């Protein structure tokens, strides 16, 4: 089982592996620049635990955990 964006620890860089959700959402995310190979990082969690905020392609995007769980990532090796 590969980790999803929802499992990623705060601040950990990762590369998106795939987006496995309904087409409407995956298309939207891809058009906003979240593509296989794109580097992402979770920078913040909302005070009530959901949603989370990502840093991707020099901007910040927030997603609910349920949606982030559908984005499979490969974490980069920590230096």
């Amino acid at each position, binding site marked *: 089982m590969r980790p999803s964006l929802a499992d990623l620890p705060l601040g950990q860089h990762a590369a998106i592996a795939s987006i496995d959700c*309904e087409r409407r*959402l995956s298309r939207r995310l891809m058009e*906003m*620049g979240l593509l296989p190979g794109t580097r992402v990082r979770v920078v913040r969690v*909302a005070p*009530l635990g959901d949603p989370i*905020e990502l840093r991707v392609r020099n901007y910040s995007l*927030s997603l609910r955990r349920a949606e982030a769980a559908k984005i499979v990532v490969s974490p980069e090796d920590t230096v």
Partner: protein
Amino acid sequence: MSGRAPLPQVLIAGNPNCGKSTLFNALSGGSAHVGNYPGVTVDRSSARLRRGTQDIELVDVPGMYSLTASSPEEQLAVNALTEGDTKAVVCVVDATTLQRGLYLALQLIESGVSVVVALNMMDAAERLGLRIDTERLSELFGAPFIPVVATKRRGLDALLVALDEALEPARGSQGATVTYPVELEADLAKLIPVVAQWRSETPRSQLRVFALWCLLSLGDDSLRGVPDDVRRAVHDIREDADARGRDVDLEIISSRYAWLDDALSQACSAEEPGPSWSERIDRVLTHPIVGLVVFAVVMFGIFEALFAGAEPLIGAIESLTGFMQAQAAAILPPGVLQDLVVEGIIAGVGNVIVFAPQILMLFLFIGFLEDSGYLARVAFVIDRVMKGVGLHGKAFVPLLSGFACAVPAVMATRTIERRRDRLVTMLALPLMSCSARLPVYILVVGTVFAGQSLGWFSAGAVALFSMYTLSVLVTLAAAAVIRRTVLPGPAPTFVLEMPPYRWPSAPILWLNAWRRLRIFLVDAGTIILAMTILLWALLSFPKSADVAEHYAAERVRAEQMAASEVEKAEALRSLDSQEAAEQLGNSFGGRFGHAIEPAIRPIGFDWQIGVGIIGAFAAREVFISTLGVVFGIGEADEENKPLRQALRDARHADGTPVMTPLSGISLMIFFLLACQCMSTIAVVRRESGSWKWPVFLFSYMTVLAYMASLAVYQGGQLLGFG
């Protein structure tokens, strides 16, 4: 517009939060005309601009991340591009998030239209240490890149010069040819002939781009006007690709991003900037504890301003209306014309402008929150709560505003992106207990609970508190039910950009708030004025000549009998009130009150309260003044002692009192849940774009109110109360 040829159009397009509207306002000098796109409730801001010898129409297209569309609202931009008289597009790109903004620019350039890219917020990009070679970008994209700072009006002249060049005939964008995978090219070859039949006027060069658009947009869409054979062709291609394990969406989008990444690597510095100001601010504003405190304080501030801060202004408008009414009454001879002007027209205009302070305040607040970037954080912080009832985090501010008044609150739903989410919010929030319900509660509480207590608390306070709690619960429940039944569909997704914090520009805040107000005054105001006049007619006609004659004789008698001037005035005033009460009882509205008595008797009301409810349709607090007339008291407010006494003394035909604690609770619940407000109806009509939704709103709230009051009153009687 007269019969002249339409002006050549220049679209201003760009991502949300890229400063597109700021640039539009800077170019148009605030002279924009705000209308509606046909068929959808999306504002269409346009302005006429003189360039050399010709006029052009500048159109502010709604913010978007892509031309891909799955709803009629998203289709607007594509329609404007392909069907309108679009001669050029200014694509506004936030220089600090180049890649995402240029994805849209690339699509526009691919489509063959003449594009000028306005690289906005260059100052912020420089501060972040981003180096952008605009000349190299212009070469790579085949379209001019002009650095601008829209808020400081920097670069506008260069932008206009580039626009003039772009408007020259036979100019189009050249270059920017994205390489797509071979398999996709084969699909396109199949699709282009089908698309060509649909779009016979589209130049050949653009058909390819249109075919790409169809592949990406069609399938799970609700777009209008796409021919079946195009849909079938797209469906077949996508199905075939799926069977081979290909992902068409991914192929198209990643090819474009690959092209962009390559182009940007040639023209920009690559290093990621360090933590920005925004990052530091966010550490505080979305902090688990401090963030929630700031959130609560900001929300309370908005609430307080709408609830209490607007009060003096509303009072002033009401006084002014009263003054105008008195003036008109003094000038015009008594009669139907005077009544029409005083109680119909002036009252109606008053009913419209009385909303102005709250609308202006709410939109100044929302504008500030939105332009500063905090509104996205509000949604971020509170989404967890809203998600539970199927609402979007952005529904919070409109719902909260509903405590003050549903009219500005319904208008505030336009910050919510998707139409379905917006409608659910709009249809649930009139259940929030607005400030116009409070006087009704106070009158009822003062009438039936005066001096009573429940344990430590006064019974009235408990009743009031219960109403507010109930209103929140019912609103959230209604949202959840409407989302599952009337407007089913996928739960709202929360994909929200968190824009960097920025200091909003005051003139633009004012300009936007003023535009919103103007739309309300014109569109909803017309309906409110018409309804006020209709209500006036219902409660004034027919006038009984017998009653008038009887009271004329009574007046003569009273004048003869009176011992002093004071006594005479007193007697005449009392006769006036009695006549008004009798005429009202005899009017269409009064007869209607009598007619519905059998229906409202089971919820504890009599015909007099029925007439009050009809009058309250003008605005809930009018219930009280209508009752004042019904009971022959004359002018009355919620603290009026004679009115409270008259209510206590009122008896049903069988001699039982009308107002008991139980019927009082039933009445409060009815007012809490019923849509007794024509202004809400009018504004929902304006914001939803059809009469269907206000009719639904009125129907469901009335049924809900009746059933709830029935349950309370009948249940209470069974249990031995009242």
